[in-house]
């Protein structure tokens, strides 16, 4: 079982969304919602400690494989969030992502934290640092305007090059 106290944050992103904690929780745990804001990927979550947390690409293949570590709806969801590439966990350890949903007056403050249990190169972290703002900006637009942003993201080249140097195969 993951010991979350061994993990240190490498990225913290805070965004305020005009919505309710319950609706934001639903958006963060629903395949239907996530397809709209998460680059077409579908989030499949079994919302209990030990439940599976899977992100599936439009072609059905698994992009992220993980497990629920903390589950306190609608306030907190912590998961292991491991990209499904061979040797990644062996070489870099698991990635922990936590979503904290707090009321801020009538609206919501969502804080997403990515954490690791060992030092990770900035080039590798650049993938998440590029991806999360796009995903969360799109989520905010979806919840506030009914329409997600569908941003065409460039593959994170620095991250892919750094993973290759470590012998981690990427598609």
């Amino acid at each position, binding site marked *: 079982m993951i010991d979350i106290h061994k993990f240190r944050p490498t990225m913290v992103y805070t965004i305020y969304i*005009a919505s309710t904690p319950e609706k934001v929780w639903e958006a963060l745990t629903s395949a239907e919602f996530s397809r709209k804001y998460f680059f077409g990927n579908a989030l499949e979550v079994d919302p209990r400690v030990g439940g599976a947390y899977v992100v599936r690409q439009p072609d059905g293949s698994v992009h992220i494989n993980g497990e629920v570590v903390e589950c306190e709806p609608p306030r907190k969801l912590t998961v292991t969030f491991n990209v499904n590439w061979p040797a990644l966990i062996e070489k870099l350890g698991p990635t922990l992502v936590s979503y904290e949903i707090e009321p801020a007056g009538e609206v919501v403050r969502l804080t997403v934290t990515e954490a690791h249990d060992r030092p990770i190169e900035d080039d590798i972290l650049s993938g998440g640092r590029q991806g999360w703002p796009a995903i969360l900006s799109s989520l905010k637009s979806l919840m506030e305007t009914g*329409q997600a*942003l569908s941003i065409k993201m460039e593959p994170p080249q620095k991250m892919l090059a750094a993973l290759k140097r470590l012998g981690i195969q990427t598609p």
Partner: protein
Amino acid sequence: MSSKPDFVYVTFIRTTPERLWTALTTPEFIRQYWFGMHCESDWKPGSPWKLVFADGRLADAGEIVEADPPQRLVIKWRNEWNAEMRAEGYSLCTFQIESVPDASRQAVKLSITHAIERTESKFIEAVSGGWPRIISNLKSLLETGSVVLPPKAA
């Protein structure tokens, strides 16, 4: 790896680079998303820049270092109202605006980097809490016509 406490915030907004530049540099607009505060400047390199509270008191001050509308704005920026933060000296705040392809309409990527030449900074810690609030407000204002956080919640 940098030991400096730079704050970086990236957001994507459904708007045009020109509209975003206007929102960042027009006092009437700024007041709406910056909790009643506004900026005063002519936005030309070398010109002075001020951030002013709703009651007219000076909050922060500095100078425009670079201005390349609608893509890039760099401000030399020092807090003026808090003695400890003022003593830290000038920070550099860079706004980078890029068009990004969006399936339906145009979107922009706004990248803000707020940096100071110190290993620890109370000022950067303070703006790290402020920027997500201000930029969340700016994004909601441009996309929906209303801010997300009410004006008094500074």
